[in-house]
């Protein structure tokens, strides 16, 4: 279990050294998107149109924050459950996305895409929305404002704490961790 500090955008080299269980502190720009925004991104790719942000090396955070209080960049902003993005993530990974931040299990297609195209799935602590918001220095809506909490936001983050769940070698921390602590009668 290693600890890294990384700056986005991430390279193939960055993600290839990460292993399931490693802790990473991310800094730089990351983008928020949930199911509705993912669908629109994939539709744009399929139509051959330009995306609202550069996908190369990008990290997407699955989050729908609470409204910010006056004078603050964002409200509480912890991860949402990731499986709802499973049908879209492989397409984005194939087109250059390098990292995803969420919580909960991914399907085999996402794990395979991580292995084949070199990308990682990071877990953040669900229900720690107030704490995580401290790592977010600025936020601006860059696409789909009509989606409200589900709009795509560009976040500037500093030492955003995540744990590698699925790495580029096909490892899965959820399986590994559970096997280690499971008590079989």
């Amino acid at each position: 279990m290693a600890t890294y500090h990384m700056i986005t955008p991430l390279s193939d080299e960055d993600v290839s050294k990460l292993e399931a269980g490693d802790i990473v502190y991310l800094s730089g720009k990351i983008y928020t998107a949930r199911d509705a925004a993912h669908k629109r991104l994939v539709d744009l790719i399929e139509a051959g149109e330009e995306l609202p942000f550069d996908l190369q090396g990008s990290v997407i955070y699955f989050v729908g924050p609470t409204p910010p209080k006056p004078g603050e960049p964002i409200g509480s902003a912890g991860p949402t459950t990731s499986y709802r993005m499973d049908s879209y993530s492989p397409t984005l990974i194939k087109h250059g996305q390098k990292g995803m931040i969420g919580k909960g299990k991914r399907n085999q297609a996402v794990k395979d895409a991580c292995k084949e195209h070199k990308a990682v799935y990071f877990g953040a602590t669900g229900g720690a929305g107030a704490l995580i918001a401290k790592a977010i220095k600025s936020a601006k809506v860059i696409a789909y404002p009509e989606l409200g909490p589900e709009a795509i936001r560009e976040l500037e983050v500093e030492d955003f704490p995540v744990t590698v769940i699925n790495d580029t070698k096909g490892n899965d921390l959820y399986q590994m961790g559970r096997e280690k602590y499971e008590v079989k009668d």
Partner: protein
Amino acid sequence: MREIAYDDLVKSVKAMVMHTASHLPEDALKAIEKAYKEEKSEVAKSVLKQILDNAQLAREEDRPLCQDTGLAVYFVNVGEDVKVVGGSIRDAINEATEQAYKDGYLRASTCDCFDRHNLKDEVGYNLPAVIHFDIVPGDKIDIEYAAKGGGSENVSRATVLAPAQGKEGILNFVKQVISDAGPNPCPPIIVGVGIGGTFEVAAKSSKHALFREAGTQNPDPDLDAFEKEIMTELNKLGIGAMGMGGTQTVLAVHIEKNPCHIASLPVSVNVQCHSSRHSHITL
């Protein structure tokens, strides 16, 4: 007949809802602290530490504990000798919910089932609230409230077992539900189990079971023993905090039991994430 003013009811409920979003109740805090002390996995321990730090920060700075500020769920017991003047109880609770979610900068999370558009502009901000009414003797209105998030609701399940499956069948069903859920409902979790009644009574009981203070004993010794047995079995799954592997997956198991039909054994499992935001007022 005792009277309660509509505006007073709105004011009390609104204050409770706003407070609950940022203040993790004492029972949940104590249960998480206990899990932190007993956890064997270093990774899971660090997650539990983050959860405790988050609770402290949310409390001190009055920030929502989680961005999923939930659907507002109420169990309301209305005394036969009390009435609300100036409006209906349902309207008062909905109005209080909307005001609390708006003024507290909480998230509006109700949407249409099919096209998924947010209902905040046409029905109301995070409306409608989910309200379960009951009529009871007395001149009080008793309101239990929880902000119920989607992640833990998504893994909840109900079934009707054959009576012959008995306690073993119930244990196996609960174990299967929690095993399948894995990391998704934000463990460590509280597990509400509704047993008996009809199909919908079991489901409602499993929800209401989550409102009991974590760490309190079931008054029925037989159910108390069964809760402990289920909890021990669930913690053997090894899921751990946020599913990263560990010994502390379940903070508490709460059972509510009802008489049922001679042909049926309904069972429902409702899961509560570690951010167990609930409150209680009596007016």
